[in-house]
C-alpha cells in the first residue's frame, strides 16, 4: 500500500503534465486547471498519509531511513548502476509534505490568478512537470537520481520563468536561470563522478557506509593534497549553491521573478531553491566527516550570502525582487546553519525547521504580492501605498508573514531562526553576529515593504474601475490557509521528528538568549515605521547618507555586470570568436589550399602539351635518355 502511494505521489503530477501537454486546449479547455489541481490534491493527501505513518510508528526511538522501492534504470559497465528508487526518511517526508502542500496552494491560487491566460493548460502542465520533478528529487534514493531530477526541476523552472515567452526579459531571465544553474551542475556532476569512483556506488545508504568506513575515507585519490571525498563534496556543494542561489551564483534568482507570481511562490521561494539545502542535508553525514575546510566553506558562503542579500533587499523597489533577495538571504541562513557542524547536530534540525517555516511564509508573501500586483498592475513600490483598507485580507496575512520572517514570537519564523542563531552562538560567534545583523536588516526591509505597500501614502485609483475586488476566493483561501500555517507552524515540535541522526532532538529555548534577536528585529521594524509609515523624504536622505554604498547596493553590487563581462568578454570574445575564426580561416584554408595548389600545378605543367609534334618527339627522346641514365646509375652497376 505504502509503496504504491509513494510512487503515486510524483506520478500524479506527471500524469497531469502528460494529459495536459498532449491533450492541450482542445480536450480540456479551461478545465485543465481543475484536472491538475485534483491530481495535486490527491498526491497531497497521499503525501500527508506517508508522512504520518512514517512519523507515526515509533517502533524504536530512532527514525530509520528505508528504501521503499528500487529498480535499475541504467547499468554502467563497471558495476555502477543508476537506480530509480524512493528513500523515505524524516527529511524526505518533510519535503514531501512541504512540496505537495505549497504546490497545492499554488494550483488553487492559479485557478483564479492565471484565468484567461492563452496557454492556461500549458501553465498547469508545466506546474505538473515541476512538481513531479521536485518530488522525484526529494525521494531520490541515490546521487544520480537526484542529479536527474535536479536537471528536470531546472528545466521546468526554465519553462515557467519563460512562460510569458513573448517578453524578451522573460526569455533572458529563463536563459540566465538555466545556464547559471547548469554551470553549477557541472560541479555537481564532477562531484558525483568523484564520489562514485571513490565509493563504487551511487546509492545514498551504501555511499554513507562506504565513505565513512576507514579504507575509503583514507585520502585515496587525493588531488592537490585534498582528499577525493572533500573534492567531491565541495563540488557537490557548488551544485547546491547554484540551485539555492548562494553568492556568487545568486544572480539568476531575482531575474527569475519574470515568471508568473505563483510560480515564483512555488519554485523560487518555497521548493526548488531549497533543493540545494536539501542536497546538503541529504549528504549531511558525509559533510560532517569531511575536512573542516568544506564545512566552513558552506557556513561562510551561507552567512555572507545572508548579509549580502539582505543589504541589497533594503534598496530594491520592485516588491518581487525584494522578496527574492529576502529568499536568498533566508536560504543563506539555512545553508550556514547546515555548515556549522556541532556534535549535537542542532544546525541540521534548525536548518530543516527554517526550511519548513520559510517555505510557508515566503509562499504566502509571494502569493500576497501577486494579489497586490494584480490590484495595482505594477511591481513598483511607489505605485502602491495605502492599500490596507482596500485589501484587508491580504493586509492581514502579509503582516503575519512579515512578523514571521522578522522573527517576532510567536510566529513561525521566530522558532526556527532562534535555533539557527543558538547553534551559531554555540559554535561560531562571528557568524552569529552576522546573522544577528541580518535578522535586523530582514525586519527592516520587510517592514519597509509592508509600510510602503499598505500605509505610506493614501491610495489614489489611477486605474479605471475594474478589479476593485481584492481578489477571488480562489486567491484568498490559499492566503488564509498559509496565514494560519504561518501562525501555527512554529509550534510543531520539529526536533522530535527531524534530526541528523534520526533520534528525537530536544531544543531548549531560554528566553534571555532570544532577547537580542527579537530586540534587534523590533529595532528594524521601528526604523522602517519611522521612515516609511508616512510619506516623507527621510528615505532619500538616509540613502544619500549612505552615499556610494547605497548606490552599489541598489545596483546589486554589480555582480550581474561582472558575470556578464565574464561571459561576453571571456567565453564569447576570447574563446568562442577565436575558435570560430580558427575554423573558418585556418583549417578551412588548409583544405582550400590543397585544392588551389592542385589547380595551380595543373596550370603550371600545361605547357608540356604544346601541340608541336617535334616537341613531343623531344620529350620522347629525353624521356628515354633520362630513364636509361637513371638505370645506369641505380641498377646498371658494374
Amino acid at each position: 500500500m505504502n509503496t504504491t502511494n509513494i510512487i503515486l505521489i510524483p506520478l500524479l503530477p506527471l500524469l497531469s503534465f502528460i494529459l495536459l501537454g498532449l491533450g492541450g486546449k482542445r480536450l480540456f479547455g479551461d478545465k485543465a486547471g481543475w484536472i491538475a489541481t485534483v491530481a495535486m490534491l490527491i498526491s497531497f493527501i497521499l503525501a500527508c498519509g506517508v508522512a504520518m505513518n512514517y512519523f507515526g510508528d515509533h517502533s524504536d526511538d530512532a527514525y530509520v531511513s528505508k528504501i521503499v522501492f528500487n529498480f535499475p534504470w541504467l547499468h554502467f559497465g563497471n558495476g555502477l548502476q543508476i537506480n530509480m528508487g524512493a528513500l523515505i526518511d524524516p527529511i524526505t517526508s518533510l519535503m514531501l509534505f512541504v512540496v505537495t502542500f505549497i504546490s497545492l496552494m499554488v494550483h488553487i491560487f492559479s485557478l483564479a490568478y492565471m484565468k484567461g491566460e492563452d496557454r492556461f493548460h500549458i501553465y498547469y502542465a508545466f506546474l505538473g512537470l515541476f512538481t513531479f520533478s521536485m518530488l522525484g528529487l526529494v525521494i531520490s534514493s541515490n546521487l544520480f537520481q537526484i542529479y536527474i531530477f535536479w536537471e528536470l526541476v531546472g528545466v521546468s523552472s526554465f519553462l515557467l520563468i519563460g512562460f510569458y515567452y513573448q517578453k524578451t526579459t522573460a526569455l533572458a531571465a529563463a536563459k540566465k536561470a538555466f545556464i547559471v544553474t547548469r554551470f553549477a551542475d557541472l560541479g555537481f556532476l564532477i562531484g558525483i563522478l568523484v564520489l562514485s569512483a571513490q565509493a563504487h556506488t551511487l546509492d545514498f545508504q551504501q555511499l554513507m557506509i562506504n565513505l565513512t568506513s576507514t579504507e575509503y575515507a583514507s585520502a585515496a585519490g587525493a588531488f592537490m593534497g585534498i582528499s577525493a571525498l572533500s573534492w567531491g563534496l565541495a563540488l557537490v556543494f557548488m551544485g547546491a549553491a547554484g540551485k539555492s542561489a548562494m553568492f556568487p551564483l545568486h544572480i539568476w534568482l531575482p531575474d527569475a521573478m519574470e515568471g508568473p507570481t505563483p510560480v515564483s511562490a512555488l519554485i523560487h521561494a518555497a521548493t526548488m531553491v531549497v533543493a540545494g539545502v536539501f542536497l546538503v542535508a541529504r549528504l549531511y553525514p558525509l559533510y560532517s566527516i569531511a575536512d573542516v575546510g568544506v564545512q566552513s566553506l558552506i557556513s561562510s558562503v551561507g552567512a555572507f550570502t545572508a548579509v549580502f542579500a539582505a543589504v541589497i533587499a533594503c534598496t530594491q523597489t520592485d516588491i518581487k525582487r525584494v522578496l527574492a533577495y529576502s529568499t536568498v538571504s533566508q536560504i543563506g541562513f539555512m545553508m550556514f546553519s547546515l555548515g556549522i557542524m556541532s556534535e549535537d547536530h542542532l544546525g541540521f534540525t534548525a536548518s530543516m525547521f527554517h526550511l519548513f517555516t520559510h517555505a510557508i511564509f515566503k509562499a504566502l508573501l509571494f502569493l500576497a504580492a501577486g494579489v497586490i500586483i494584480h490590484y495595482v498592475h505594477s511591481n513598483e513600490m511607489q505605485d502602491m501605498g495605502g492599500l490596507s483598507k482596500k485589501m484587508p485580507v491580504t493586509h492581514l496575512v502579509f503582516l503575519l508573514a512579515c512578523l514571521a520572517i522578522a522573527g517576532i514570537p510567536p510566529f513561525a519564523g521566530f522558532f526556527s531562526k532562534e535555533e539557527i542563531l543558538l547553534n551559531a552562538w554555540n559554535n561560531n560567534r562571528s557568524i552569529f553576529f552576522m546573522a544577528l545583523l541580518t535578522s535586523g536588516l530582514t525586519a527592516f526591509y520587510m517592514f519597509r515593504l509592508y509600510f510602503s505597500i499598505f500605509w505610506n501614502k493614501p491610495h489614489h485609483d489611477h486605474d479605471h474601475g475594474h478589479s476593485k475586488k481584492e481578489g477571488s476566493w480562489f486567491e484568498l483561501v490559499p492566503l488564509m490557509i498559509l496565514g494560519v500555517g504561518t501562525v501555527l507552524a512554529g509550534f510543531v515540535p520539529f526536533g522530535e521528528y527531524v534530526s541528523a541522526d534520526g533520534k528525537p532532538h530536544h531544543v531548549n529555548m531560554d528566553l534571555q538568549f532570544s532577547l537580542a534577536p527579537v530586540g534587534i528585529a523590533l529595532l528594524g521594524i521601528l526604523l522602517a515605521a519611522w521612515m516609511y509609515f508616512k510619506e516623507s523624504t527621510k528615505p532619500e536622505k538616509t540613502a544619500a547618507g549612505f552615499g556610494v554604498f547605497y548606490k552599489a547596493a541598489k545596483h546589486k553590487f554589480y555582480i550581474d555586470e561582472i558575470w556578464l563581462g565574464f561571459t561576453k568578454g571571456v567565453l564569447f570574445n576570447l574563446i568562442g570568436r577565436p575558435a570560430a575564426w580558427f575554423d573558418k580561416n585556418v583549417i578551412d584554408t588548409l583544405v582550400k589550399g590543397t585544392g588551389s595548389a592542385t589547380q595551380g600545378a595543373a596550370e603550371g605543367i600545361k605547357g608540356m602539351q604544346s601541340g608541336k609534334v617535334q616537341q613531343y618527339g623531344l620529350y620522347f627522346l629525353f624521356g628515354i635518355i633520362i630513364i636509361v641514365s637513371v638505370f645506369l646509375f641505380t641498377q646498371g652497376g658494374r
Partner: protein
Amino acid sequence: MNVEPGLFHFLVIGAVLFFIGIYGFLTRRNLITMLMSVELILNSVNINFIAFNKYLWPGTLDGAFFTVFIIAIAAAEAAVAIAIIINLFRSHQSINVEVAEEMKY
C-alpha cells in the same frame, strides 16, 4: 681500334645514322623532310640487323628477314604518311608542321 672493318664499325654507322635521322625528325619543319628522317632511322636499324646477323649469328636468317619486313613496313608507312600529308596540304595549304598546331594544352 683496328681499322679492319668489323661489326663495331657497322654499329657505329648505324647509330650515327639513327641519331642523324632523329635530329632531322626533331628539327626539320617540313613534313616530308621529317618523313625522310624517319626513313633514315629505319635504314640505320636495318644496318644493325644485317651486321648482327652477319657477324654474330650467321647461323640463322632472322636479321635478314627482319630487315626485309622492315623495308616493307617502311614502304607502307611512307605511303600512308604521304597520303596524310597530302590531305593535310589540301586542308591547310601547307606542309609546314607548324600549321598543324590547333590542338594543344
